[in-house]
């Protein structure tokens, strides 16, 4: 899974968000490193909806502006958990190797 896709799933983990809300949340989660542009965001959302990981939650029209909110589906939550666990394992393995290297460099 691409990093941007993982971050979008993570952004939707706690509450439904609209497009701009997802972009803002992804930027916060990545420390400003990743800021998806609209074309990229909606292509990813289309893909996630097609895969059954994300769904439309509700729509709002505020001051004539259409807001569509998206939320994680059960499968999306499970996929996010699976990816998180995979990344945790990878991070732990890398961390263990780095710890093992430190004494020899000291």
């Amino acid at each position, binding site marked *: 899974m691409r990093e941007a896709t993982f971050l979008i799933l993570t952004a939707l983990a706690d509450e439904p968000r*609209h*497009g*701009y809300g997802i*972009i803002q949340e992804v930027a916060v989660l990545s420390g400003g490193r990743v*800021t998806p*542009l*609209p*074309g*990229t*965001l*909606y*292509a990813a959302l*289309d*893909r996630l*909806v*097609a*895969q*059954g990981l994300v769904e439309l939650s509700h729509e709002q029209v505020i001051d004539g*502006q*259409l*807001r*569509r909110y998206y939320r994680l589906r059960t499968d999306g939550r499970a996929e996010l958990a699976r990816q998180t666990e995979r990344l945790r394992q990878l991070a732990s393995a890398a961390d263990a190797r780095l710890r093992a290297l430190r004494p020899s460099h000291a």
Partner: protein
Amino acid sequence: MHRWLLLAYPRDYRRKRGPEILETVHDIAPTSRGARVAANLVRHGLRARLGRPASRSVVVWASVFTVACGLFAASFGTWLTWLGSRPLDHNELAAAVSQLYPDKQVSHIDKDDPPAVFMIYGSPLSWSFASELLFGDGGEYSLAGLGASFEQLPADSRPRVLAELRQRLQAAGWDYTEEIHSNSYDCIPDDPRCDPSSIPSNITLYAQRGDNILEVHINADNTTPKMDFAMTRSTPWSAYPAGVVAFVLGALSGWCLFGWVSRRTEGGHPLAQGLARFLYGFAMFLWLAPILLSAPLMLSHHLSEPHLRWHLPWEWLGQPTMSLPFLLGCLMLTLALGLAALPYRQPADQTLAHS
């Protein structure tokens, strides 16, 4: 402006997603560069239009095919205009030579007009030349010309002949280029017997008057005839707009065709998808390799000496010298089209971008 950029997306997609995307674009406007957002929308819109929104390379492949189709169509368009150009007239060559050298008798002059605009081995193209055209001799397919020659130089030395020729061309209303000096033959540079300064050289000069181009050769001393003339037609003016229009039409057709095949094969059986990719990739290799080989050589040649007429566009594409790979590429693409035309079941979980 972004509303216009949404035109890169398919119409159905625009209807469903357009307002939402525009709102998001509006929201991020204060913090994002407009050009970056625009490029992002066009890129993803074109991917969606080609039926592969998740593909990072589909737009590049479609563009390659589009440009190739445009170039071949432009060549075809200019070829058609050449076929409609004014036929060569042997009387015009006779008049031109006698006007330049009224006091000299030519040893040879063509007295028949060429039967076609383009010839191969002195004859119009016909099925009997199919093997020559396909198996490496396609370069012989070239513009027809008329010739005349002098057995003896019309003056006592080659520099004097050249100086007089320039004066006579100018007096007769011809525009001419700088002369080109070229060796009659080459020798192996490392060979001790090779002395390039001792090799006899030929002099070539091009002149144009109206739609006639006159190529004059003052040959090396050991060559007969000593001086010869070749008359050909200049590029018809209609070739330029015809080339541009044909390029646009060919490119549009190529884009639409690629999009259709891409949409039809996406989501199909993996074997069919793999086969379609292989056929496309191999066809592009067969089409583009001759272009990538020929175009730089032609450009180098074009810049190295004066030209009154651009080389014919298909020669820049390596055609018809490489007509066999071109035809094989066409065959591959036809098979890919056939593969795409096969009936197949649309995936149930179709995304918005596919619709």
